[in-house]
């Protein structure tokens, strides 16, 4: 399975092993982890919500697009949903390619586009007990403008 949503911890070692290949000279793994500070605000945990069917379809589309643009040998994306504590892995993206530049480009493309296209949402749990849905910065998006 090359794309998954999980409500249990991501085994990024298994993710990385699954993209290793004798044809590959390079593997790039990206992990998104729950960060304590965003500017001055202190996070204690995150909650992720997803539209599962569409999120899976979109993650698979991203991998298909990466394969059209770079000589990707294997690619895997796993994203957590539910409640995550500080330091936990929220997303793992692993790519293998014959050469390193392509592995870096494909890996960065997958996580950049995941953040603008895949229907998953993050709610901050601030240290003062408040919660707040994250409003993404104006990331470069390939989507149609808002409806």
């Amino acid at each position, binding site marked *: 399975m090359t794309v998954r949503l999980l409500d249990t911890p991501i085994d990024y070692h298994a993710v990385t092993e699954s993209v290793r290949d004798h044809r590959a000279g390079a593997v790039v793994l990206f992990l998104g982890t729950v960060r304590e500070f965003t500017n001055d605000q202190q996070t204690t945990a995150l909650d992720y919500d997803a539209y599962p069917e569409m999120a899976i379809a979109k993650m698979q589309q991203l991998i298909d697009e990466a394969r059209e643009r770079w000589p990707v040998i294997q690619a895997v994306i796993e994203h957590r949903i539910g409640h995550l504590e500080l330091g936990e892995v929220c997303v793992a993206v692993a790519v293998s390619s014959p050469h390193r530049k392509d592995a870096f480009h494909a890996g960065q493309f997958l996580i950049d586009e995941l953040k603008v296209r895949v*229907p998953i*949402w993050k709610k901050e749990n601030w240290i003062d007990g408040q919660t707040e849905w994250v409003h993404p910065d104006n990331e470069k998006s390939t*989507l*149609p403008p808002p*409806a």
Partner: protein
Amino acid sequence: MNVTIKLFAQARDLAGTSQTNLSLNEGESVKQMLASLIDEHPALSQIQGNLLVAVNNEYVSSNSLIPTNAEIACFPPVSGG
């Protein structure tokens, strides 16, 4: 026609439900569907300018028409990763 609209994240919280039913005329656009949705759930007007709509797992623009028997979802800009 009757359509069911799935709601996620802040859209679900504001509407107070994870899905809602609307009665639309055939050939209505996404923009018209959103107007009906906000009539039904006025709290959504708070994020009105930011709502995204997906039909059958694909993003659609506001002038697209709502097809029959489609899976429709409405949600704020994504923030995964």
